């Protein structure tokens, strides 16, 4: 971080998250619980940001890698299987499986151009759901794999129903992921990605082999998404049903990246706060508030704020694209410390 003393929004946001973790209980905010979802989706968004934001490959099947991660983690830890790894070995396994899956999908398909690649990733997302659903001898089909044992952390012990330790664990992993993404972005690897995004032919004339570069981006993104999936499964002690990792989740990840600002790590953090914050925090709270007052009739379809979720998402996306297409916190120059 040669560039320097100026504090980037990422660190401000992560600092804010630390502060929230510290103050949540004394102030009785009750935000730590839903914030865990924000952190997991920020990880997923970071993964997609590597693929779509840095490398410019439209990816519509990120949820598939999340599912692969969740299932790898679950199979690795759950005691209905013989493997029964600890939390950390299973996490490593999850990340490796995710990267390999990304690699295997990317190898034959990364020669395709833009929209064709998008549909292939979309198809992959559907296939993975089907596989998880149909191979029930291994994946337990629609009931999902559960219960997963809680993570055991050195010095803390078993993570139970208390939210605090979970929050710190997720936040710590997110900080690591942010650092990894920044390191990559400001290196030879990341420059190759950005160059391929800006102009693939020119990049190739500069000696960058585009397909291997894209392959690394794909695998990195998949590994981060798998990590998000593993954490998600661990949080709910279950993979949930395969349908949970559907196209909507992939699109949610895309929204996070785009609302935040394509190719901007700061943006991913803001984007996940905005999108998941609205979906998981604001809407449920609004619903509870309205119902407590008896304002709305929950049997009417219009009465439940949850039914408005996609309308809100859709309108947010459309308005964003009209008003601020570069996102809330667009990527900034000076990745290599040009500012000095």
């Amino acid at each position: 971080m040669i560039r320097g003393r100026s504090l980037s929004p990422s660190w401000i946001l992560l600092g804010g998250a630390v502060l929230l973790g510290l103050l949540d209980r004394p102030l009785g905010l009750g935000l730590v619980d839903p914030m865990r979802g924000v952190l997991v989706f920020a990880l997923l968004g970071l993964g997609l940001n590597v693929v779509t934001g840095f490398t410019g490959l439209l990816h519509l099947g990120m949820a598939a890698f999340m599912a692969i991660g969740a299932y790898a983690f679950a199979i690795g830890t759950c005691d209905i299987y013989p493997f029964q790894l600890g939390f950390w070995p299973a996490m490593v396994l999850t990340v490796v499986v995710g990267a390999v899956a990304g690699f295997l999908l990317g190898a034959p398909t990364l020669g395709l151009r833009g929209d064709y690649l998008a549909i292939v990733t979309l198809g992959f997302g559907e296939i993975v759901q089907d596989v998880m659903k149909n191979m029930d001898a291994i994946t337990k089909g629609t009931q999902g794999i559960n219960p997963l044992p809680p993570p055991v952390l050195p010095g803390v012990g078993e993570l139970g129903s208390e939210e605090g330790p979970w929050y710190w664990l997720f936040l710590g992993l997110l900080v690591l992921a942010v650092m990894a993404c920044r390191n990559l972005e400001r290196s030879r690897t990341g420059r190759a990605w950005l160059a391929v995004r800006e102009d693939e032919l020119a990049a190739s004339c500069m000696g960058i082999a585009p397909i291997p570069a894209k392959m690394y981006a794909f695998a990195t993104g998949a590994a981060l998404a798998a990590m998000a999936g593993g954490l998600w499964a661990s949080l709910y002690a279950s993979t949930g049903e395969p349908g949970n990792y559907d196209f909507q989740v992939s699109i949610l990840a895309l929204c996070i990246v785009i609302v935040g600002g394509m190719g901007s790590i700061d943006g991913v953090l803001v984007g996940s706060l905005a999108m998941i914050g609205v979906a998981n925090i604001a809407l449920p709270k609004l619903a509870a508030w309205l119902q407590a007052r008896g304002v709305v009739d929950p049997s009417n379809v219009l009465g439940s704020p949850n039914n408005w979720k996609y309308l809100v998402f859709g309108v947010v996306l459309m308005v964003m694209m009209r008003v601020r297409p570069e996102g809330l916190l667009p990527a900034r120059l000076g990745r290599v410390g040009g500012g000095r």
Partner: protein
Amino acid sequence: MAPILEVDRVTMRFGGLVANEDVSFRVEPGQVYAVIGPNGAGKTTLFNAITGVYQPSAGEVRFEGSVIRKRVGPRLALRVLGTAVVSAIASSLAVNILSLWKAVVVANYAYGEPFAWGKALSCAGPVLREAGAAWTWLPALIGALVGGGAAFVLWLRRRRTPDVVQRAGIARTFQNIRLFGELSVLENVLVGMHARLRTGFLENLLRLPSFFGERHRSRDRAMELLRFVGLESRAPDAARNLPYGLQRRLEIARALASSPRLLLLDEPAAGMNPTETVALTGLIRQIRERGVTVLLIEHHMRVVMGVSDRICVLNFGKRIAEGTPEQIRSDPACIEAYLGKEELG
């Protein structure tokens, strides 16, 4: 002296359109060699054929005595074999995974009891044998053939891609500037250096010591190149914010960053004002003094006549003349086809 670049009877055809026909010339090391011709004469197409963007329909381009392309060797063998093995295992697994899982895991694991790995894994063999050739070996064979075949075909198709050519020592600029607009000026030069840098994915991810050493060296060299083209003070700016003339210079710096032995400049003076043009002529001379051979496409006769050692004239895709600037100046075919007397001044 052996030529650094030999264009040998290159023909480029697109469907029925013949963009280059039987074009030949040779560039000696240390020369500035210009290719000129009216618009649509096939100059840029020729550049694309040289740099691997297109493959010549006929003829070949030799660089330092040989055609640049990926060599048949252990890397290829490893790649084809590796893909074949991986896809063989993957296809066989895809067919047998459920029965394997049942035999190895489900049959040997009772809830809460220890799992005997050795015994469990030994159950895999019988399952595969029992499934027989049709279900075990046939998918593996098909997978190996398809995977290995695809890997080989893709390798064959990508034997002479632009990145292969660039790494062999030919760098280029573009007629319609193709900088990485959202990247800073410095980053653009660093991208040009890509093939000369070594740090891999893990080193960059974990910031191992080698990363810092190389970052330091590469940045110094990039700044030196920016100084050479006079862009030092603009290093942190976004490339797309540079004025047009400076963008052309940045393209040259970016191309030089890979330490090429041959530099291809595609109309470097297009859109430049007279002052900038004069400065560019000086820059091309300096590039030659650095020991880089230059192949130039240009419309500005002043630039061409001022710096070139030899000139090749194309018209309608064919070579109509070749020689020193003086010879070209007096060649009647050229004058008729392209130059026009008053332009020679």
